[in-house]
């Protein structure tokens, strides 16, 4: 049995296939030990033996955002200890005299140099002596207790060209008993700062992720014979937990990557790829954060990037291009020193949670939504969690600052948080030259559908898709994702050698097929080459066909012309990397389809309530989503409630149920 479990800041979502149908279970997260909720969910769904748990984890992301990772000792070539802080020497904001100093995860006292040197050609010019290595270990050991390191990152100059010295240093530091990340394994590519930064992030996450995942796998296998755990990577593929524990830097966007895969899949099912192109903007609002992404490329989904910045720190392993902000249902509202209302990034999470959950003392976005009638206390999580409106109202009245009423405070909170979300969408769309008006907004996560209409209005997005099970779409994406493993080898060969790559690919593939079959997987190999004109600094990734290798060179010239405005068939081409992506597709799944019949959703109507829109409360009709049938159409002001979420429909907007049970919202422009 295959189960996807996605841990969020507030809820843990569990999705699995039973009798050809997707089932979903949502329970509270257990932030102190997220694995508790996972185990609990597995027990609730009565998962048996031979269990395959696919996990989306936020442990990595949260560690970065909250700056709660391990104290990392950074070891590099002597003379270059500061390079991890200097970075690329450029400022991030060109015209801002008051920009804060850039983030460095390694404190001054934990930067160590080792006397060694490798040349650009990979020749070892100087090896550290045994004494020097012992001295290095002593130095690290001697760090004062308040900064004593919990993990080690080793990144020496030119380690990608010759990893021998890194291996020796690693061996010498092994006895310290700390998790060690080495740059030649994490990112064997040139550019020392980006490689070092990525390695440091890995070390920063390693102790926490390592113990978390091994603990989880242990418990899963204890309670479910033959059970194993896999983890979603930031690049959108699944890897075994054992690998994820060693290279946690690849899982920073684990859950969000599931959301991207899920959203693209749902958009495809719903027919939003009619011309072979998805043009969707995704917004996934959970308890602590909101992720936004854009897919405008061919149906393979959004682009990957190898130049990410996570919480201010460069991370160069490939990931899906996702932008995250600290705005979620649990985001805490406060007045800052200048009496300006701020929302997030601090979150009440699951514990203590929002005020209305009964324990929290500080107003959150969820409390604001409740006060404004945008959450139904009786149906929230099927009624299993009682929302205490009176408590929320009382506490918010006490904390409303200069605002006249608790409702004004609540409306202000929503305005601020929606502005933050709107800005995030602008960054990934408008700022990259995409006009949001040409996109469909796919809104999910518990909070996405609550805010989707007002965001779509602000950005003039005409259509919103609220998938069936919006609160568990990341888990759906994780369940349906392929198992993927990426391998590469740097070769630096002249283009004339294109005919001689077969044996290298063969070696690479042999190794990966072994690895895959050890996990009982049958992989499909996708071979490609990174090519460039000789002496360029960046490559283009080109498919490689063993039957006509030379075709790759032609394709390179062609793509170079298309993308960069010129090409020159006479110029020498360099083969930089061979890449092999092994993927094992998940079992195919198509959602059940029913032909829509025009309807007015009368059987789903269950109540009426005042909901606050823009400036005032308006009598609004409430519908149960599980009672809606394909073809039903609802006009705002209304709210459609469901187990994991609620879709708020302002006056002028309408919702139609498609054949897959998705809500397709049509957004009317705001009346003046």
């Amino acid at each position, binding site marked *: 049995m295959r189960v996807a479990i996605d841990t969020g800041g507030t809820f843990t979502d569990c999705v699995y296939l039973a009798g050809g149908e997707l089932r979903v279970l949502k329970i509270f997260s257990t932030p102190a030990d997220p694995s508790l909720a996972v185990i609990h969910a597995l027990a609730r769904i009565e998962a048996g033996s031979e269990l395959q748990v696919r996990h989306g984890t936020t442990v990595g992301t949260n560690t970065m955002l909250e700056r709660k990772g391990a104290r990392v000792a950074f070891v590099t070539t002597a003379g*270059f200890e500061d390079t991890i802080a*200097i970075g690329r*020497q450029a400022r991030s904001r060109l015209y801002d005299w008051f920009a804060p100093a850039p983030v460095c995860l390694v404190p001054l006292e934990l930067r160590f140099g080792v006397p060694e040197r490798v040349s650009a050609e990979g020749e070892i010019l100087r090896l550290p002596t045994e004494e020097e290595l012992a001295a290095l270990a002593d130095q690290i050991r001697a760090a004062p207790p308040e900064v004593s390191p919990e993990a080690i990152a080793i990144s020496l100059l030119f380690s990608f060209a010759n990893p021998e010295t890194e291996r020796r240093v690693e061996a010498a530091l092994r006895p310290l008993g700390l998790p060690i990340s080495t740059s030649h394994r994490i990112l064997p590519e040139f550019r020392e700062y980006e490689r070092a930064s990525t390695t440091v992030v890995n070390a920063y996450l390693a102790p926490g992720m390592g113990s978390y995942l091994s603990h989880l796998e242990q418990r899963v296998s204890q309670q479910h014979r033959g059970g194993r755990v896999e983890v979603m990577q930031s690049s959108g593929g699944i890897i075994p937990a054992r690998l994820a524990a060693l290279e946690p830097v690849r899982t920073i966007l684990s859950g969000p990557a599931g959301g991207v895969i899920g959203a693209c899949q749902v958009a495809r099912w719903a027919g939003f790829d009619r011309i072979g192109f998805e043009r969707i903007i995704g917004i996934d609002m959970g308890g602590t954060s909101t992720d936004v992404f854009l897919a405008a490329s061919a149906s393979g989904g959004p682009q990957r990037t190898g130049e990410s910045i996570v919480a201010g720190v460069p991370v160069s392993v490939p990931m899906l291009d996702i932008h995250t902000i600290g705005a979620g249902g649990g985001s805490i509202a406060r007045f800052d020193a200048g009496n300006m209302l701020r929302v997030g990034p601090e979150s009440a999470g699951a514990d203590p949670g929002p005020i209305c959950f009964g324990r929290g003392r500080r107003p959150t976005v969820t409390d604001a939504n409740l006060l404004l009638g945008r959450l139904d206390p009786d149906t929230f999580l099927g009624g299993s969690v009682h929302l205490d409106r009176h408590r929320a109202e009382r506490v918010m009245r006490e904390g409303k600052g200069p605002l006249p009423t608790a409702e004004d405070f609540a409306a202000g909170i929503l305005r601020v948080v929606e502005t933050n979300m709107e800005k995030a969408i602008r960054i990934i769309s408008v700022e990259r030259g995409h006009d949001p008006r040409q996109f469909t907004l796919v809104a999910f996560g518990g909070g996405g559908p609550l805010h989707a209409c007002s965001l779509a209005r602000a950005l003039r997005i005409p259509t919103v898709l609220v998938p069936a099970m919006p609160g568990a779409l990341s888990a759906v994406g994780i369940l349906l994702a392929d198992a993927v493993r990426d391998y590469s080898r740097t070769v630096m060969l002249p283009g004339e050698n294109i005919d001689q790559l077969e044996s290298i690919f063969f070696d690479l593939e042999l190794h990966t097929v072994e690895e895959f079959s050890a996990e009982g997987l049958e992989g499909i190999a996708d071979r490609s080459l990174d090519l460039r004109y000789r002496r360029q600094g*960046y490559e283009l990734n080109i498919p490689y066909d063993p039957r006509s290798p030379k075709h790759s060179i032609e394709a390179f010239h062609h793509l170079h012309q298309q993308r960069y*405005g010129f090409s020159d068939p006479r110029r020498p081409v360099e083969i930089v990397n061979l890449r092999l992506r092994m993927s094992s597709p998940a079992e195919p799944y198509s959602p059940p389809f029913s032909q829509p019949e025009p309807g007015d959703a009368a059987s789903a109507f269950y109540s009426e309530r005042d909901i606050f829109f823009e400036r005032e409360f308006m009598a609004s009709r409430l519908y149960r989503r599980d009672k809606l049938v394909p073809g039903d159409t609802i006009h705002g002001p209304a709210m459609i409630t469901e187990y994991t979420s609620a879709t708020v429909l302002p006056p002028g907007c309408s919702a139609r149920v498609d054949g897959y049970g998705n809500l397709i919202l049509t957004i009317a422009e705001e009346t003046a």
Partner: protein
Amino acid sequence: MTSPKIDPPKVDAPKPDPIDLAVFQSAVHSIAEEMGAALRRTALSPNIKERRDYSCAIFDSAARVIAMGDHMPVHLGSMPMSVQAAVNAIDFAPGDIAILNDPYAGGTHLPDITMVLPVFLSGADRPAFYVSNRAHHADVGGAFPGSMGPAREIYQEGIRIPPVRIVRSGQLDRDILDLILLNVRTPQEREGDLESQIGACRVGEQRMLELAARYGNQKMHALIDEILNYSERLVRAELRKMPAGSFTAEDWMDDDGVTDTPHKIAVELQFNPEGASLRVDFTGSSPQVAGSINAVRAITLSACFYMLRCLLAEDAPATAGILRPLTLHTTPGTIVDALPPAPVAGGNVETSQRIVDVLLCALAQAVPERVPAASAGTMSNLTIGGIDPRTGTPFTYYETTAGGMGARPSLDGISGVQTHMTNSLNTPIEALEYAYPLRLRRYGYRRGSGGAGQFRGGDGLIREIELLADAQVTLLAERRKFRPYGLEGGEEGGAGRAWTITSRRPATSDGTEEAELPGKCTRMLSKGEILHLETPGGGGWGRPLT
């Protein structure tokens, strides 16, 4: 000197709404960024592909800048002059691309080579836009490898290219290219980089054509007018908040590399909040000098542009509208408005920073809480040229090293970061050593070099480079005698310095000899010698707490 102006077409379109305007602004800006990405991803020289020493910008039919990538502020005010110079000199036809580098005809200093591509909408006989990019080439010939040496005349600084067509109706003009390549030390690298610049222009052209198709000509013109007006409104709103009156400041360049005489830069800012305008007057600045620290007027204009742009929020567009409230007065024949044949290599990289220092020093008197103390004030330019023994072919290396940022009211300055007129990255050591016969020995903070204060200036950097081949090393640096100033009682940042380390008895660590290097000099150094460079720290802000 005034250039013939082209009138923008008159159109009566409905005023664009704020969403349209925001989308359009971001779209043109992202086209400029995309041109930059194309350039970086295809160029050959580390200075362009790794250090991103380039700028890309989009202009309307009247050669007014409507978007500029977040690249190099020193090019802000000067790229429009390049486009204007190209427009004046050339009767463009579709498919043409102009090339130029003459500082006295739209350029800034010779290593910065600019390309201008006119974008013709289908069937039109006049360009609707211009796209342009400028990149710093690691050598353009002349007396010193790297073309940044202590020259006495511009003729010693390299090949001078007036605005000419390097591409005519889509065909590369091989004659022009060959003429250029014959005059430089590293022709293959130059050819590759120039080809990248041509490609980047074409990327910009393609995207602008797509954008124009999406909006239609009339709407596009309305948006352009509005975006320029919008920039202007933003600047005027800031100027309205300034205190009325006149604020003056002066600071000094150490020397011109020829004599030891310091040279003054003086400025007067006159704020007129009622008229929401600003007059900047550089009267009193030194006459142009024998050495290469002369700045052409375009650079002085860039510095003013930069100061105004910094008064706005980070996401405001850098368009020609920003300059509308500004009146700039410079005296031709001075160090801030040089005339031919004065050499100018350092004007772009050194004097430009001092002009900013002086502008900010005057501004701090008007709005002390908004202005940081002086940053390093020099780009510490290093050029090294010789023969690479690995290949037997010539190489030229160029790099600027960051210093300390001046302390801010409420914040310490950042250490080891590019400030003001430049924002080029460092060359990754692993790219540098792959490309050149050089080995980095050390790269780190220069602790204690930031000026003390309630808020400390950022520290400078230390960089040590060992030569793996005999080579000519040229340094062009400042802030040796006149250190970066502090504000409100903050102390000065540490002065920059450099020396060579020569091993007299190999294999012993103490048998070395050090020789101090002046800020501006050129030396033949031998294989095995080490250059040690220390960059200045930033000034402090506020009296140090005792």
